[in-house]
């Protein structure tokens, strides 16, 4: 555990020592803010849950996608490129600890990145009381699904980063792959067969987000995203171990 915490701290420092963290924050927070304002504008005078103002905005999710692709990009690709991976993996730590440390570092950064968006709701309450009912359940539900999906996408991005030597390639591929997540429900219309359509629709994030942002917390998506994140961590460990199988 101590090793994982050490690696987590190093990863967080690595983000903040490089311009990357600031670039991501500078791009993410205004985009999130603008999408929040836009959905506020669109829904003015109409009945809408407060959670959906932020978490129902597609612009916000595009920003999440881009942020995750960028923040997972250096995790292993950079270490592989610079040769520090060799230094890391010849220390008395297990591959699993390295992967978990990196994952926790990236997830920690994601939390730091998304927490300031809480201020949007506070500002809304202060500046325009009564415009939207500030209920805690939809907001908490919204953050829960944001972090669940974020955790799962970070896992996917980390796996892709472990497969390549070039951080830019990792970012590009991650953006594409995790972008597909969000098109699953549109894609489900194209798939023949009732069962397959239902399965895809069940996996599609859009429906989960809508439910959670209305304060309806279902354990099935929770289990889905947690197990996907776990799978990605496991797969990354296997990718690192693969150096010994060749």
């Amino acid at each position, binding site marked *: 555990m101590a*090793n994982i915490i050490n690696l987590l701290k190093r990863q967080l420092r690595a983000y903040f020592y490089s311009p990357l963290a600031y670039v991501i924050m500078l791009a993410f927070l205004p985009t999130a803010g603008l999408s929040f304002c836009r959905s506020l504008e669109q829904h003015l005078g109409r009945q809408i849950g407060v959670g959906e103002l932020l978490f129902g905005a597609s612009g916000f999710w595009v920003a999440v996608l881009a942020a995750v692709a960028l923040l997972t990009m250096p995790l292993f690709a950079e270490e592989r490129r610079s040769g520090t991976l060799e230094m890391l993996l010849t220390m*008395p730590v297990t591959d699993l600890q390295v992967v978990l440390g990196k994952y926790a570092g990236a997830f920690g950064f994601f939390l730091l990145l998304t927490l300031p968006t809480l201020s949007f709701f506070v500002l809304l309450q202060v500046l325009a009381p009564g415009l939207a009912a500030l209920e805690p359940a939809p907001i908490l539900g919204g953050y829960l699904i944001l972090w669940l999906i974020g955790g799962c996408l970070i896992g996917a991005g980390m796996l892709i980063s472990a497969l390549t030597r070039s951080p830019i390639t990792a970012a590009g591929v991650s953006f594409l792959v995790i972008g597909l997540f969000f098109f699953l429900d549109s894609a489900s219309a194209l798939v023949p067969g009732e069962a397959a359509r239902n399965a895809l629709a069940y996996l599609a994030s859009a429906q989960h987000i809508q439910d959670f942002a209305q304060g309806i917390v279902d354990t099935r998506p929770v289990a889905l995203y947690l197990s996907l994140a776990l799978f990605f961590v496991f797969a990354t460990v296997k990718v690192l171990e693969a150096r010994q*199988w060749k």
Partner: protein
Amino acid sequence: MARLRPIGLAQLSPIMIKVEQVSKCFGPIKALDAVSFEVLKGEIVGFLGPNGAGKTTLLRLLATYLAPTKGRILIEGQDIFLHSLEARRRLGYLPENAPLYPEMRVDEYLSFRAKLKGVPRRRRRDRLEEVKVLCGVKDVERRIIGGLSKGFCQRLALADSLVHNPELLILDEPCSGLDPNQTRALRELIRGLARRLTIVLATHLVAEAQAICQRVFIMNGGRIVAADSPARLTEQLHGHVELVAEIAGPRDEVIKRLQSVEGVRRVRPAAPALEDAYFRLTAPADESDRTNG
């Protein structure tokens, strides 16, 4: 009566590393081909060979970064792939080009590494001071690694490999990219360490192997082709010197004249087809030095 402490067999054995028939393939490429050798405790052993001879692959195997395709590697009788964490605690590894995190400060980096290598908290400060002084990075402890010269980076990476007080040190081209002064200083440092540790290093420079090692394995094409002390190997390598000279003149006359030069053992035309050009002269190393002035 004082209780006798049981001594394990491993502690009695003078063998630090035992490599048994180790092969390593990368797909169709055989990087190492049935390599076997032993390294005694306290020895400094060098692997000498051209690029692509398999030196780095061998060191990566010893450092547990890669696993062998065939064969096994024992450190003090313990298979390093069955007990890789234990092995990593006992060895310090300096990969080629000393990869470091450029954004960190020297102090911060060493302390990060010391923590991960399990140096206990109460001993950490003293140990960090020790290695910083030993490796000469004390003066730059507050600097950012990205701004350090190659020499300091190399020293820092060495300090890192020593921080957990390993018994075995694995160095891949420790002096590559350094200027002659830095090289001399680093060699001095490595020789100084040898009193306490076993050192295995790879190099492509004969001079480096000569300057540091007690025993040298020469590698080529993934195999160990020779093993001896550096002095004896140098003798074999430099037993004679061949000179190729282009001399215009009648063949027999030229050969006769050349043979009469002091120190020349043998003269033969390099290209028999060409009547008047290219002769190979063979002379003992020291003799030819004299004739060359």
